[in-house]
């Protein structure tokens, strides 16, 4: 991507460069053997019953797993149960794990499935991939259509009620626990596939390739789900902050 002559409010260029790079990496990786580094060593150690290796994995992924589980279940103690069940499923599935995805994405795909099936009956009966497809295909407007001018207005398709700048909002307020609670609530209110994607991409900071692998999503679906999830969280924040 060429450098952009945009004002400093656009660090997008840096982000888009890295996701472009991630995509190329993912394509290259799919064509060759995964580098026999961390994952292989970890797998060997686990299969050999190396408790220190297992403890290290638990400590490394634990906080992220708790965070993701917590987006699906009501209490930290249930989230903890979900994480524990996940590790047991991982251990029991070690023999069958073929290494086609990374250890991390495999672990989290198990976690997401266990976490969401702890919830509603619907979550248990509908496969995640089908939920994701339904959510991506639904006709959904990320921004309330009333925010835009209609065909009879002076600027059709332009903002009727433009978003305000958040620059005047004191940083303390933006970073406060109350504001973060709103973000958490907005994410909890998302439909399951959108929630999973924003959890891995934005809460955990995973790349598009890793998220797609963990959730078994096409690039198009992943982007649509992320787009809708972010739009809803933004709208909830705008409501709260205005």
């Amino acid at each position: 991507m060429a450098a952009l002559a945009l004002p400093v409010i656009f660090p997008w260029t840096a982000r888009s460069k890295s996701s472009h790079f991630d995509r190329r990496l993912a394509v290259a990786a799919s064509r060759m053997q995964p580098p026999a580094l961390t994952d292989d060593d970890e797998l060997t150690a686990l299969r050999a019953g190396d408790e220190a290796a297992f403890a290290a994995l638990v400590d490394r992924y634990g906080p992220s797993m708790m965070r993701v589980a917590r987006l699906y279940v009501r209490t930290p103690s249930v989230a903890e149960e979900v994480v524990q069940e996940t590790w047991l499923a991982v251990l029991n599935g070690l023999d069958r794990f073929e290494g086609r995805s990374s250890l991390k994405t495999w672990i989290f795909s198990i976690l997401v499935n266990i976490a969401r099936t702890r919830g509603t009956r619907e979550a248990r009966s509908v496969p995640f991939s089908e939920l994701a497809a339904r959510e991506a295909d639904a006709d959904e407007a990320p921004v309330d259509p009333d925010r835009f001018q209609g065909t009879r207005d002076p600027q059709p398709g332009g903002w009727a009620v433009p978003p305000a700048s958040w620059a005047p909002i004191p940083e303390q307020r933006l970073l406060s626990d109350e504001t973060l609670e709103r973000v958490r609530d907005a994410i909890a209110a998302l439909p399951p596939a959108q929630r999973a994607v924003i959890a891995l991409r934005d809460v955990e900071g995973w790349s598009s390739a890793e998220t797609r692998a963990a959730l078994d999503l096409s690039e198009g679906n992943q982007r649509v789900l992320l787009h809708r999830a972010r739009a809803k969280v933004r709208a909830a924040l705008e409501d709260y902050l205005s």
Partner: protein
Amino acid sequence: MRLLPSRFRRRGQPLRCRELVELVTAYVEGTLDARERERFEAHVRLCDGCVHYVEQLRTTIALTGRLDHAALSDGARRELLHAFREWKRA
């Protein structure tokens, strides 16, 4: 582009705000084609509402990234290591 219902797509015409908000994620991911990227940036240079929208989205993503962790409790961690030893023996 799947994001945009076809009734909103007007190739080659300047972007309207309602169209821009559909393209934001693709822009950030770097998946817009060159022409759509140019249209996006050209619009944003001139439109305060859209500048604020994109800023708000950027802030939203940053805040989402700040949701904090709860680590596993000591008890849970001990149980897991115990489970690991049981699993090893089986």
